[in-house]
C-alpha cells in the first residue's frame, strides 16, 4: 500500500466553553490515501468540520489541542508554527473550500483581483503569466467565458459559479490535497450535479487528493472512493464507499445508511434513529455511541473501542463480536 498523504493519529482536541471543556475530537484516527476522494461523514456536531480546519491549523482562540499528530507526507503539521503553515503548506500543498461560496469570496473585489491575490502570494510571477494561470484555472472548472468572468464581482455570479470560482482559486496553486467542507450544501440539485461532475473529472485529470466532508449520504455515493464515518469526535468505521452502502458494520453506520431516503423509501418503512447525538461536554464514557446502541455490552461503557481491521481497507471501532 502507498503511504497515506494525510495521516491523523490519536488526535484529541477540546474547546473551552463557559459550561466547561467540550471534547470535540476524541482520539481520531484517519488515513487519507493519495489520489483518492475520501469522504468524512457524520451528523452536525460530530467534529468533521473541526477536523478539516485543524489540518490547516485554522483554530478559534478557545481551541486546545490535547494530543496526537497530523502527518502530511510524514511531516507533523501540529508541530508547525502558523508562519510555517502559511509559508509551506496552505495554498501550495493543502487547500480548503467551505460550505457557503457566497461568504467565502470578498464582495468588494472582482474575481480577477481575488484570483490574482492568491497567485501573488503563493505562485509569484509576471502579471501575464499569472493571468494565464487564472484563465487556465477557470477553464479547468468549466466556467464559460473566463475573460469576461474575471471582470465580474461575486454578486454577479450564481451560487454554483461562485463555488466553481472557489475551486479555481484553490487549484490555481496546484495543491496536492483539497479539503472540501460541505461544498454543495448551499447549492440546488442541478447545480450540485454539475459541480460533482466537474470535481470528479478534475480529480482524475490533475490527480489531486480530496477530503470530502459532508452529511449527505447520496453525495457520498456519487463521489467518494473511501469513507470515514465519524460519531462524537471519533472515527467509528473506515470503509470503501461500496461496502458502506452494501455491508456497513458499525451499528451507527448501519443506522446512518438505513436512514437515507432512497427511491424505495416511504413513510412507513422510514427508519428512525432513537436518541440523539450526545453533548460533548461530559460525553458518555467508553464508546460514545453506547447509549443509543442496541448491541451495548458492559465493556462499551468503560473503554472506547479502537479501529480494528475486519477486511482489507475496512476498519471498525466496535466491541461487537460478530463484526460483519
Amino acid at each position, binding site marked *: 500500500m502507498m503511504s497515506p498523504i494525510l495521516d491523523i493519529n490519536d488526535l484529541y482536541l477540546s474547546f473551552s466553553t463557559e459550561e466547561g471543556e467540550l471534547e470535540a475530537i476524541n482520539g481520531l484516527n484517519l488515513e487519507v490515501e493519495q489520489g483518492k476522494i475520501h469522504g468524512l461523514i457524520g451528523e452536525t456536531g460530530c467534529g468533521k468540520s473541526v477536523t478539516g480546519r485543524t489540518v490547516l491549523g485554522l483554530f478559534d482562540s478557545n481551541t486546545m489541542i490535547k494530543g496526537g499528530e497530523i502527518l502530511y507526507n510524514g511531516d507533523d503539521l501540529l508541530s508547525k508554527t502558523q508562519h510555517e503553515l502559511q509559508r509551506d503548506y496552505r495554498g501550495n500543498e493543502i487547500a480548503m473550500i467551505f460550505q457557503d461560496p457566497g461568504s467565502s469570496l470578498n464582495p468588494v473585489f472582482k474575481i480577477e483581483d481575488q484570483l490574482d491575490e492568491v497567485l501573488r502570494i503563493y505562485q509569484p510571477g509576471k502579471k501575464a503569466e499569472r493571468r494565464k494561470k487564472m484563465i487556465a484555472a477557470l477553464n479547468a472548472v468549466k466556467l464559460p467565458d473566463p475573460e469576461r468572468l474575471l471582470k465580474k464581482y461575486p454578486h454577479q455570479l450564481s451560487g454554483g459559479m461562485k463555488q466553481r470560482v472557489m475551486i479555481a482559486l484553490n487549484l490555481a496553486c496546484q495543491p496536492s490535497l483539497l479539503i472540501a467542507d460541505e461544498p454543495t450544501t448551499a447549492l*440546488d*440539485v442541478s447545480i450540485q*450535479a454539475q459541480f460533482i461532475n466537474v470535481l470528479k473529472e478534475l480529480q482524475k485529470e490533475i490527480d489531486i487528493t480530496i477530503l470530502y466532508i459532508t452529511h449527505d449520504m447520496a453525495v457520498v*455515493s456519487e463521489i467518494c472512493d473511501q469513507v470515514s464515518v465519524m460519531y462524537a469526535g471519533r472515527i467509528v468505521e473506515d470503509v470503501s464507499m461500496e461496502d458502506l452502502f452494501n455491508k456497513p458494520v458499525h451499528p451507527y453506520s448501519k443506522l446512518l445508511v438505513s436512514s437515507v*431516503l*432512497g427511491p424505495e423509501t416511504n413513510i412507513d418503512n*422510514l427508519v428512525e434513529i432513537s436518541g440523539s447525538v450526545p453533548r460533548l461536554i461530559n460525553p458518555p464514557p467508553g464508546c460514545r455511541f453506547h447509549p443509543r446502541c442496541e448491541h451495548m455490552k458492559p465493556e462499551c461503557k468503560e473503554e472506547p473501542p479502537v479501529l480494528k481491521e475486519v477486511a482489507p481497507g475496512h476498519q471498525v471501532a466496535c466491541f461487537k463480536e460478530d463484526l460483519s
Partner: protein
Amino acid sequence: MNSTEVILQADKIQKIFPSKEGDVRAVDGVNLDLISGEVFGLVGESGCGKSTLSRLLLRLLDSSGGSIKFKGEDITGFDKKQLKMLRRQMSLVFQDPHTSLNPRMTIYDNLARPFKVHNLAEGREEITVEIVRLLKSMGLQAEHMIRYPHELSGGQKQRVVVARALAVDPEVVFLDEPTSALDVSVQAKILKLLAKIKDEKDLTYFFISHDINLIRVISDRIGVMYLGRMVEQGEVAGMFKEPMHPYTRGLFSSVPEPTPARKLDSVLMGEVPSPVNPPSGCHFHPRCPEKMAICEQESPVFNYRQGRKVACHLYNLD
C-alpha cells in the same frame, strides 16, 4: 385521501415584485388545486417562486393578479378581520426552527401566543392544559414548557414550531422546508410525526422542499415549478416513474441516488436564468434538450395528459 374536495384553489395567481432592473414575476399565473386530506409537495430550485407561492396562498403576501379560493370562498379580497379568521384555518411551519421561536420567551410563552391571539383558551390554567396536550402529542414533555428555545435541540425546537402551528387547530398546514435544517436521523422522526398527526387530525399539507427524495417519501401529489410557473403536476408515483416535462426529467435525474452502482448521468445543463428578464415563450427553452421553434415564441399552456398536467409544447401536438 377519501374525498376529492378541493380545499384551496388558486387561479392564475400572480406576484410581481418591482425592482430597479425591472419587474420580477416571482409567481407568474399559477393554477393549483389543493385536495382536502392530501400532501401536496412543491419542488423547484432556489428562486423558482415556491416560497412566494405559499405566502400568496396563505395571504401573507398580496397577489398582483388572479384569485385564491378557500373552501369555495374567494379570499383574495379578505380584510384584516377576515384574515385573522383565515389564520386559524391555515398555518405555517418555517424552515429554520432556530429562528422561528422567540429566544427570549419560554416555550410556554411561545406556545401561548396563538391561544391568546385567537382567544382559544382563557387564563393561565386553561392555556397550560392546552400546551401540555400539544407538547405530549409532539412527543415532548410538560417540563419542556419552562425551558427556553436555546435549551432544546434542533429536532425538539422543530416539534415546538409544529406544535405552535397546530395550536389553532388548522385544516391546512404549510410546511416550508421543515426538515432541511435537521440531521437525517432527526428528519426521519419529524417526518413520521407529521404523517401521524396528519392522519389523526385529518389535515391537508402543502409541503415545500428542494429535497426531491424527501418530497417523494411524503407526498401524494407533487408540483414542479420553474421560474415562477408550474410546469408539471401529478400523482407522486407516476411523476417519478415517467416525468413528462423536460425540466422535471432533468431535475429528477440530477438528484444523487444513495446507491453506489448508480451515478449521475444526464444532468441538467446551464443555470436558472434571471427572473427579471426571463426567456421568451417557454421559460425553460434555453436549457431544454427538446427545444422546438414554437418554444421560443409561445408559452405552453397547462394540458391534461394521462392524469397529469404538463405545460410543454411537446404534449400539445395533437
